[in-house]
């Protein structure tokens, strides 16, 4: 019989993959970002189907509530929202290569093993290949304290990785702030002077140093 989960799975798959396709084809970057949010939401739905409730909520919090915000802010900070030609010259080749890769992966996974219970049209390949109708693997139930175990493992088994994650966030903060910070004109001038002085000290003939200063200034 046709189960609810199967229907929901198909809907989620269509929404997620459709939104993902829109992300990579839309001309308007802002719309692409919104489609990205939809794709993230679809993935959260898959997490629910996979009984990873915490990760579904974390997906909403991290990806939809945080990372998409960051992306949309970046879209706003850089002009050129609509692109005349959204994709570059190699897009055709890339599309072919991606499609080939997809087919390869799917062959590896084995679509003939997909047997949607009670969803006959999708089971045609399974019959055509005459393969065993079901994936032979026993699935255990998730223990109700899976999340507690994760918490314990994070500070015990994966302690180093956990601490490194904190350090990674610190480094991300330092790097991003250093790169994106708006520097005051005084600071920039001071930096340029120091740079020029260093170069003048390093180079014996003074001409290249002056040239270097001229080129760096030309960028602003």
């Amino acid at each position, binding site marked *: 019989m046709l189960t609810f989960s199967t229907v929901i799975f198909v809907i989620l798959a269509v929404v997620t993959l459709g939104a993902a396709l829109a992300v990579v084809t839309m001309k308007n970057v802002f719309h692409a970002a919104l489609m990205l949010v939809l794709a993230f939401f679809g993935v959260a739905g898959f997490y629910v189907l996979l009984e990873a409730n915490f990760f579904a909520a974390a997906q909403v919090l991290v990806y939809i509530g945080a990372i998409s915000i960051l992306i949309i802010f970046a879209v706003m*900070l850089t002009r050129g929202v609509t692109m005349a030609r959204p994709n570059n010259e190699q897009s055709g080749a890339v599309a072919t290569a991606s499609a080939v890769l997809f087919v390869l992966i799917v062959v590896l996974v084995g679509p003939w093993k997909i047997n949607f219970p009670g969803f006959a049209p999708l089971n045609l390949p399974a019959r055509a290949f005459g393969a065993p109708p079901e994936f032979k693997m026993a699935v255990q139930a998730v223990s109700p304290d899976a999340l507690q175990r*994760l*918490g314990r493992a994070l500070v015990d088994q994966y302690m180093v990785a*956990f601490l490194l994650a*904190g350090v990674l966030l610190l480094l991300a903060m330092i790097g991003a702030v250093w790169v*994106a*910070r708006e520097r005051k004109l005084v600071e920039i001038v001071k930096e340029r002077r120091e740079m020029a002085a260093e170069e003048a000290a390093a180079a014996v003939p003074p001409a290249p140093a002056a040239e270097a200063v001229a080129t760096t200034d030309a960028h602003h």
Partner: protein
Amino acid sequence: MRTDFAFVGVLLVAAFLLMGAALVAASLLRPKKPNKDKAATYECGMETVGDAWVQFRVQYYLFALVFVLFDVGGVLLFPIALAFNQLPAWTVLVISLFALTLLSSLLYAWRKGVLEWD
């Protein structure tokens, strides 16, 4: 009282549909006499110049950045908080170290003047 997410999905879809229905109902009831001036962008009576694509300051991005990093760091603490009662005492040290790393990233941003709004 159920314990699964199915209800959340149903509620989300129902809320979207009902809110949409409210808009549809309003569109049937309300008058519709559009004219050019009504549909113009409202900017205190001035004619708008260009579209809304004004350039924003990087400051906004930096605030979002600090927010994102703390949000993500906080998510990692939830399973640990859940298991906290069963954890041995020395793990407090590990968690504190993580929390202090987060705090030091905030202090870095603070010192670099990211948190000043002017």
